[in-house]
């Protein structure tokens, strides 16, 4: 079965890559292509052809990022990306100046870099590609699959490291202050309906800053995480500024009603109140109290009148 699978990949998988990448795909299209790391783990070198074809980088040649050390097999360590993400996403002006859309994207990338530089991840070895696999990353595609999918995918990114003590430790810098690993289940023991929260909200909705550019890359220390229930569970829910920001903008353009999208996607106690129901209940109670107060007053007057008559 493994042999058949390998042959199938060798014959067909490479055809899913761009023409220039077919040579690379001969090996990197094999799901079993991997190597042992010094720490005893396994590092995969498999590039999923279908996912690459859906990624933002689908039109890039492999050699755009991997230009050195390719002469021999297995490749030398220089074959790892010759430049980091910011080489293209921060400096390559000729590419980014082509359209207004690209200029806006470059500006956004710079803001993301600024956020990252002050985040807790910049104090470790977590880089762009740690969370955003450059061979697969396409946020727009993930968003199209719905909020539940987006939340699940993004939380898996965080939990990939934060649920694995060895992996978590491997990203800490050697000169960093010693810190004990704490399992997220333990750290979040205070949170009511913890698993439900993790299903419906992303880690970074509580663990990234809402100030400034608010692009969710300023991951903060756990002491600064959102812990006040009212922050999300109120009419001014901060989730409207992050998790639901994109979807709300789209929905508002469609229907003019901010709450419509929320109604369709989630119920958040205290945040997704129905204006008309609340208005109706307030008016009903107000009217009811007035009627009762008036009725009581008239009964009092009647009883005084009856007492007067009997005297």
């Amino acid at each position: 079965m493994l042999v058949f699978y390998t042959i199938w990949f060798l014959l067909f998988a490479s055809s899913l890559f761009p023409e220039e990448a077919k040579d690379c795909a001969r090996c990197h299209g094999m799901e079993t292509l991997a190597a042992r790391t010094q720490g005893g783990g396994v590092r995969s070198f498999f590039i999923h052809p279908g996912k690459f074809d859906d990624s933002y980088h689908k039109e890039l040649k492999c050699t755009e990022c991997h230009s050195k050390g390719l002469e021999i097999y297995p490749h030398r360590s220089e074959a790892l990306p010759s430049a980091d993400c910011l080489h293209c996403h921060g400096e390559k002006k000729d590419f980014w100046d082509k359209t207004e859309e690209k200029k806006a994207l470059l500006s956004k990338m710079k803001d993301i870099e600024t956020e990252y530089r002050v985040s807790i991840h910049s104090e470790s070895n977590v880089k762009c590609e740690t969370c955003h696999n450059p061979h697969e990353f396409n946020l727009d595609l993930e968003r199209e699959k719905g909020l539940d999918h987006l939340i699940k995918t993004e939380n898996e990114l965080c939990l990939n490291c934060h649920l694995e003590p060895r992996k978590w430790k491997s990203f800490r810098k050697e000169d960093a202050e010693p810190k004990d690993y704490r399992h997220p289940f333990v750290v979040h023991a205070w949170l009511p309906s913890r698993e439900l929260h993790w299903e419906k909200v992303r880690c970074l909705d509580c663990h990234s800053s809402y100030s400034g550019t608010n692009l969710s890359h300023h991951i903060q220390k756990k002491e600064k995480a959102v812990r006040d229930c009212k922050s999300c569970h109120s009419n001014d829910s901060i989730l409207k500024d992050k998790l639901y920001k994109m979807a709300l903008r789209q929905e508002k353009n469609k229907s003019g009603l901010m709450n419509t999208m929320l109604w369709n996607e989630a119920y958040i106690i205290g945040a997704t109140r129905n204006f008309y129901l609340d208005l109706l209940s307030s008016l009903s109670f107000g009217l009811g109290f007035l009627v009762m107060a008036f009725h009581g007053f008239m009964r009092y007057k009647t009883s005084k009148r009856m007492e007067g008559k009997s005297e």
Partner: protein
Amino acid sequence: MSKIYLYPLWLRVWHWLNALCFLILILTGLGMHYAGTWVSFISFEYSRLFHNFFGILLSVNYAFFLFGNLYTGNYKQYIPKLNGIINRIYLQARYYSYGIFQGEDHPFHTDVENKFNPLQQITYLFIMYVFLPLVVISGILLFFPETAPDKIWGMGGIWPVAIFHISIGYVLSFFMFAHIYLATHGKTVTANFKSMIDGYHEH
């Protein structure tokens, strides 16, 4: 002045426990629903905690009520005689809205066979056998949200359940305030409250 024993101990215990649950559930429900506004003076965290606890207590108390009602035959008080019911409801409503201000007597007197006037009977029937079970069931679905369907009529499954629960909650809240006010329509303003403490109704 004559007294009749109308409310056995189990009924009075159920009634006051129900009242306490209603009060706490209303306050904590508002605490969560209007979190972050002036309406909510109990924090969201404690509102959630107490709403869950008293919601469970209300459900257990309701089961106790159903059992007690059936076992003692008290359930018969809730079954209206359909013959002439509209006229009887009209007479009682007329008394509350007009007759009481003319010094008229209550059109229907309370006895062991008929503890409720017609308006009470029809209201309590709906409250105890329609609205209360609905609020309990929808509350349980919210307590275990994974049991709610993923989508109801194209909307996220929890939202319609929540709106339903809140709407029924508003109806029950309104009932409670009206019930407390109407309870002052006894021989004296406090007579009916005393009845529900010692079990005796005074004519």
